[in-house]
């Protein structure tokens, strides 16, 4: 990688705990220590934010090369420069490495400093870990175990501060637990550009608060909860719901917009409790908008479709598939239209193309465009997570939704008699409910009832995005992987299985038994996926489309 | 209606026909083997029937029964050897289907 860079970054020699390393110029000392395998505890420092150096947790011993009177470094017996140690500890988060610098992260002094800082930080801390939501992922807990001392020597009364304060609609503050690292303040100022938080009162009574007459209602407010190293800021939504150590963490990708932010789903016993961002510096950094993060409740909706129905009557899967195939085979291909979805995974889209081929309905398919406004940070204007996948697999044109007008006309004119929809509400594609009633048959895959489902001849319950495995291509052309966090309810099947069965019923065997097989066929047929498989995609994804695809114009598409 | 030699011989013939059909229809070597046993037993039935039919001094003709005894003995030995061969064959070819065992050497 570095061979291609035009101006090679200058490398500096730095000694970390007695071992000499090389770091590029501009590396923070705290990062250099981490790279050397010596983790330095920190509270206020965050790699994506500025460094105020106010928690004092990252104190280390530091030193510069010893100089002879003629400003030459003194070389020791081992041929390396000798170091003149600074008598007082230094914070490692606010300083860059320098040539010949020496760092001691585990010297007696550094250890003692951390112990002292820990003790001070805990003076007014309520120590209510059994109640606190942060317990289990709390830096205060972790570092007091690793670097603190076992017992409290504090005998006075602790300072009482406001508890259970609603900073905003989604964030609750417990000021007693706060260690005043100011990460949240800096995040709101530097990343969200919504400078709403600050510190009020003096001395021991310092506490975080919103500016008067303002609330913390920014769409990125929940990121402050993520970066809060202690339990001071907690998510109102997740508050007291479940202890974090019970949560099964599933690495997957957000599907609320074309960005495809990397996320981790925390679930327990088939129930999702929270969604947190996952670091991927090529996509979303470490942030995630609140709107995306909280949009998972519908998955556990009581109205989820859980049994295949034919004209409203519950039937067995086999029957439903057979009837759907019967309907499709009974009509000439000109009368069939397929509405795919930008929310389908690549595998499902691929099988959809196979269905299209099996039914021979060339050009009678498209996806439903979903447009909003971009917020300039992480929310893209295209709210379909996999528009690029649909384009690559040829289910839509370069202008998604371009064929819908013709489709609506066709339905109204009566030339289109059968519609297959892959989880999309047909009324959103321009049809009215009267138009739907006019159709001979609708075959719908969906997860929740909508305006189309009551009209569906065959309704096949599918899986939501947290319930399936697969892959999607985001707007920047990055192929990323979805993983299953929970199981689909009732008899609902994976979409690809439904499609596989449908294709089988329409055209005969195709021998796919696992999602890996589907990807294998996909990789064999589509050049973008050549040489890949689901495990090769990895947690962080792979770039498959190099050229930047133009985003659809919001003004024109939002009709 | 009394039961005569005819009935026994006919049942014996039926059994033999079933065994014969089985040998021709089925392609699983073990089933074929079982059908062979069925045919042997059909023969046994007619032997015993004749033995009962042709009394010697008021007793069945025990020569026939001794022959049946021999047949059963030889059949048992044959089954043991045959099944050992089938197991060896299966180990070598992973099949008991006669159509899959079509090479002279393996």
């Amino acid at each position, binding site marked *: 990688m570095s061979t291609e860079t035009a101006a090679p970054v200058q490398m500096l020699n730095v000694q970390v705990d007695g071992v000499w390393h090389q770091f590029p110029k501009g590396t923070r000392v705290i990062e250099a220590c981490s790279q050397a395998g010596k983790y330095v505890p920190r509270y206020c420092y965050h790699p994506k934010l500025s460094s105020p150096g106010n928690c004092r947790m990252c104190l280390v011993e530091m030193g510069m090369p010893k100089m002879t009177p003629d400003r030459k470094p003194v070389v020791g017996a081992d041929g390396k420069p000798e170091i003149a140690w600074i008598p007082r500890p230094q914070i490692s988060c606010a300083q860059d490495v320098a040539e010949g610098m020496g760092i001691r992260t585990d010297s007696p002094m550094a250890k003692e400093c951390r112990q002292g800082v820990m003790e001070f930080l805990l003076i007014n801390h*309520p120590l209510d*870990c059994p109640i606190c939501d942060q317990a289990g992922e709390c830096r205060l807990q972790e570092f007091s175990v690793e670097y603190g001392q076992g017992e409290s020597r*504090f005998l006075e*009364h602790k300072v009482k501060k406001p508890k*259970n304060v609603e900073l905003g609609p989604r964030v609750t503050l417990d000021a007693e637990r706060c260690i005043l690292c100011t990460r949240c303040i800096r995040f709101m100022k530097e990343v969200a550009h919504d400078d709403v938080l600050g510190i009020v009162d003096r001395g021991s009574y310092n506490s975080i608060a919103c500016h008067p007459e303002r609330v913390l209602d920014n769409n990125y407010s929940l990121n402050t909860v993520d970066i809060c190293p202690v339990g001071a800021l907690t998510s109102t939504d997740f*508050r*007291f719901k479940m*202890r974090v150590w*019970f949560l099964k963490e599933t690495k997957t990708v957000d599907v609320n917009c074309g960005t495809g932010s990397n996320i981790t789903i925390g679930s327990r016993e088939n129930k999702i409790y929270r969604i947190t961002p996952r670091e991927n510096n090529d996509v979303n950094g470490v942030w995630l908008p609140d709107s995306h993060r909280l949009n998972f409740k519908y998955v556990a909706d009581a109205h989820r479709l859980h049994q295949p129905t034919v004209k409203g009557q519950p039937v067995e899967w086999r029957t439903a598939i057979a009837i759907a195939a019967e309907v499709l085979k009974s009509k000439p291909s000109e009368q069939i239209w397929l509405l795919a979805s930008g929310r389908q995974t690549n595998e499902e889209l691929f099988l959809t193309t196979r269905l299209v081929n099996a039914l021979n309905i060339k050009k009678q398919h498209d996806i439903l465009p979903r447009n909003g406004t971009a917020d300039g940070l992480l929310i893209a204007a295209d709210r379909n997570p996999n528009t690029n996948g649909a384009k690559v697999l040829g289910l839509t044109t370069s202008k998604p939704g371009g064929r819908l007008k013709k489709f609506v006309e066709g339905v109204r004119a009566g030339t289109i008699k059968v519609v297959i929809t892959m989880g999309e509400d047909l009324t959103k594609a321009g049809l009215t409910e009267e138009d739907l009633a006019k159709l001979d048959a609708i075959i719908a895959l969906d997860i929740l009832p909508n305006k189309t489902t009551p009209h569906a001849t065959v309704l096949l319950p599918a899986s939501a995005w947290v319930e399936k495995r697969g892959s999607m291509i985001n707007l920047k052309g990055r192929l990323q992987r979805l993983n299953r966090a929970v199981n689909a309810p009732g008899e609902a099947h994976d979409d690809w299985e439904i499609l596989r069965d449908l294709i089988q019923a329409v055209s005969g065997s195709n021998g796919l038994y696992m999602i890996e097989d589907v990807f294998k066929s996909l990789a064999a047929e589509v050049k973008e996926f050549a040489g890949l498989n689901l495990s090769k995609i990895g947690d962080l994804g792979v770039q498959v489309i190099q050229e930047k695809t133009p985003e659809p114009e919001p003004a024109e598409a939002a009709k | 209606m009394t039961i005569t030699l005819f009935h026994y011989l006919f049942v014996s013939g039926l059994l033999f026909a079933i065994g014969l059909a089985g040998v021709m229809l089925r392609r699983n070597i073990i089933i074929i083997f079982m059908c062979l046993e069925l045919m042997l037993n059909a023969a046994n039935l007619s032997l015993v029937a004749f033995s009962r039919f042709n009394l010697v001094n008021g007793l069945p003709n025990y020569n026939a029964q001794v022959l049946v005894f021999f047949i059963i003995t030889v059949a048992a030995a044959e089954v043991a050897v045959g099944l050992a061969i089938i197991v060896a064959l299966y180990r070598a070819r992973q099949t008991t289907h006669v159509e899959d065992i079509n090479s002279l050497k393996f």
Partner: protein
Amino acid sequence: MAYVVPRPNLTWKEKIYLPSIVAGLAITIKHLKRMLKGETKVVMQYPEEKWDAHMPEHYRGAPTLVKDEHDRERCVACQLCEFICPPRAITITPEEIPAESKFAKVEKRPKEFEIDMIRCIYCGLCEEVCPEQAIFLRKDYAITGTTRAEMKHDKAKLYELGGVMKGLVHKWNPKK
């Protein structure tokens, strides 16, 4: 590396085995005879004889929840017992204590606390792990029921079994 157990070299007499078999039979019949004569001391006949009076202080019976002398729930639904429980007998649903409650300082309490006594193995880990000293193994050991539902102790039942336990608890300590 496999360890080869050395086999003893048996004499011809030992190889017949019959003498040793007879010797074994003699031993077993001797036990039977002694039992029949009533010479062998046998175990306690449970429902008639009980050892309740001699139960040691550390006896681990059914796990229960306790309140303090001011009728305050000690449990804050931290779910550590649920986590530690080897047979996963404990299920806790936490809830926030409403602000108007006089115990609102503690913020959190169990909405539902269930111990499935069919699963419970009386190991006492829940008692050991509890940071609030809210769960105790009491001396009830004959937990029976006629349905599975009956054997699932809910919060009310657990407090009923547990009763009151005096003493200071961390969360009420103004210094902490």
